[in-house]
């Protein structure tokens, strides 16, 4: 074990920097590579499934968008856990809280925009009606 790993281990008692892997020093060097490799394999499987879902005719067409969204969210989870090491441990609770706040804001921005714009479009006069009104004058 190098001096630097020892320093990380000491700091890890109180907190963990986002992106830092826990307990690599304890389990040996191969486990670090293993975590990234598992993440890569899961991500490849999810990506390949996404491309398959988008091109297949086996799935009920209106369900494809939902399936793609679910696969994308799953893959983002895989990246967060295996590449960025945002875990459930008490030492990374600050990082998780920040992510949770970010997800809340992203949800508000996207869902709020779509809702308001759909509502506005619904309140708009249909284009042909407006054309007719202009014609009458």
């Amino acid at each position, binding site marked *: 074990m190098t001096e630097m790993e020892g320093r990380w281990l*000491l700091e890890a*008692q109180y907190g963990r920097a986002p992106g830092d892997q826990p307990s690599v020093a304890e389990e040996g060097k191969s486990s670090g590579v293993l975590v990234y*490799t598992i993440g890569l394999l899961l991500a490849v499987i999810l*990506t390949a499934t996404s*491309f398959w879902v988008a091109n297949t005719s086996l799935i009920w067409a209106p369900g494809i968008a939902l399936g793609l969204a679910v696969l994308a969210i799953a893959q983002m989870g895989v*990246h967060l856990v295996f590449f960025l090491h945002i875990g459930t441990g008490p030492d990374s609770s600050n990082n998780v809280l920040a992510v949770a706040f*970010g997800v809340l804001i992203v949800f508000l921005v*996207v869902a709020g925009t*779509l809702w308001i714009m759909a509502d506005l479009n619904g309140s708009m006069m249909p284009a042909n009606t407006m054309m007719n009104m202009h014609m009458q004058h």
Partner: protein
Amino acid sequence: MNIAVEIDALPREALPAASEAGPASKRIVVAYGFWIFILSDIVMFAALFAAYAVLARATANGPGGAQLFSQVSVAIETACLLASSYTCGLMSLAIRSQRRVGIYVAAGITFALGAVFLGLEVREFADMIGRGATPQSSAFLSAFFTLVGCHGLHVTVGLGWLAVMMAQVAIKGIRPAVERRLLCFALFWHALDIIWICLFTFVYLMGVRS
């Protein structure tokens, strides 16, 4: 001296509570601050995604996603970025164990894959503009070029940053300040890949369908 043995020898109760342990180390503070920046960057991307979702059907009788997007090109770009995210992870491990050759090899592969991604994206943009699908021809294309171009700009900045970091490793060595910057770079690069997941799913694959 083996530090791990020293720590194991300490009972957990003997360590002071987190609130009494003093300020967190600079490494944690720096990475946490950069983490907050990345999340705010993702919020900015969320606004661009929302704009794209609203304008995706406003093609002004011009070409839509189904006519413009090439799935093969997107698949290769996705593979490049995913593989570069993996090698970036391997680079973090090499930094941790202070293997300088490992850092150079992993960073070199990460840079090459990022450059291939960027090259493919530029070629795709040039091809679209060559076919008359310029950013000013419809609201859909304006939103598309803003969103995907913003991601491409981030990748470009990331590549420049990686090159600078390799120069720092060569000149200054792997000292704590350089190592903190490399940690921030790894966070940035992984976050770009997460944004690309949203891009290829919601823009390209759903755009090809509709």
